């Protein structure tokens, strides 16, 4: 089938904020060393990404012990698959956090977590809980930007993106929860991410 997504969609957009520059070691170089089995490089890469990996996983899973377990799995997947990292397909941090998010979501969806989730759904509102995040100087600016940009989304875009991203719900589950047709949720997820992307100044 034809893909009707035009390049123009990707270039004509307003950039509001600059992405903060990573000031640590060259992560790409570290990954290529990790791919060759260099433990030291893996230790350095760990230092650069572990806080974000654990933070993201904990945000999705909540349970601290389970989160540590999954975060460790993520970091070991980075070790195992370092040779498959494709620099032209995005930054190292993005690659690592994509793995982290997928693993966290997988865990949410696993049978083991299913009952917990139902309880969570029943007992909690799904507003993002920023106050649960440990305060870190480095993360504060990033959090401010994210918070500000999430506010630029429509309510439905915001709910669609945050329920999937922070809570690990499938788009079917999101549609059920919000009582909105599947197709609408699908496009709101995309529209919401486009707006976030532009607001956060992410570009290719």
């Amino acid at each position: 089938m034809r893909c009707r997504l035009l390049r123009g969609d990707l270039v004509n957009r307003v950039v509001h904020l600059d992405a903060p520059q990573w000031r640590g070691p060259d992560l790409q170089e570290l990954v290529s060393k990790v791919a060759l089995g260099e433990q030291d490089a893996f230790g350095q890469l760990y230092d650069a990404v572990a806080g974000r990996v654990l933070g993201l996983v904990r945000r999705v899973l909540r349970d601290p012990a389970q989160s540590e377990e999954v975060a460790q799995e993520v970091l070991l997947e980075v070790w195992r698959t370092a040779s498959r990292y494709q620099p032209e397909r995005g930054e190292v941090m993005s690659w690592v956090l994509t793995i982290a998010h997928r693993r966290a979501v997988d865990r949410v969806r696993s049978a083991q977590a299913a009952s917990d989730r139902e309880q969570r759904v029943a007992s909690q509102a799904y507003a993002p809980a920023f106050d649960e995040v440990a305060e870190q100087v480095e993360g504060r600016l990033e959090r401010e930007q994210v918070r500000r940009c999430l506010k630029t989304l429509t309510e439905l875009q915001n709910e669609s993106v945050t329920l999937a991203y922070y809570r690990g719900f499938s788009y079917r589950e999101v549609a059920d929860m919000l009582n909105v047709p599947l197709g609408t949720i699908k496009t709101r997820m995309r529209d919401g991410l486009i707006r976030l992307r532009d607001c956060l100044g992410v570009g290719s």
Partner: protein
Amino acid sequence: MTIAADLHTFTGAYALHALDAAQSEAFERHLLQCEACAVEVEEFRTTMARLGSAEAVVVPPEMKARTLAATSTIRQLAPLTSDSDRDGGSRSKSARRWPRFALAASIAATAALGGIAIEQHQAARQATIRADQLHSEQARLSALLTAPDTRTATGRTGAGVGTIVWSQSRGEVGFLAQGLPALASGKTYQLWFNDAGTMRPAGLLPSSSGSLVLTGQIHSAVGVGLTVEPAGGSQHPSGQPVLLLPLR
């Protein structure tokens, strides 16, 4: 609701890991043909990474020791040689063109393509070791193996292994064979460049193990094939390929 309609609008749900396994797979097939979609997914992932980064926490110190210790028990993957992840059309494209070469060979071809071990790093290392053991053409092979853009692909046929090593900048391909099925007398292995379905003779390998630098330049070849031919070789393949390796 099916995923067939408006596939490209699934970029968001896909990036958010909000599709089920079957939908994800369907969308990944679409991604291979839709570069704009792939770019958008990547941008969404970068966007999501910003959201994730904002969640950074202080990691318990003992987690590092545990994680680093665990690496010793985990075998690392070798890299992909095929561009299938980012340019997956290429392999299917060459697969589509092969039937002109050997229609009846499609099953064998599928088996061979399926058997391509995508283990560049390991293959390159093994290829280096093998190359070191070989006398003929060693210098040319070594030059190929150490070119800055060297790539490899490996395929298996029976217990045999065939590895191609190539450099687009040099335009050359080396072939290394280990334990291919024994040849009947009066037969030879012959290599071919696959020029979009037209097979171009690229040299003979009269034994089941050994190596050679293929005759001729890559030009626009999309793959390398290996057939069994009468001793002395043929102008056109007379049989089905025993190996097909993509130059991508």
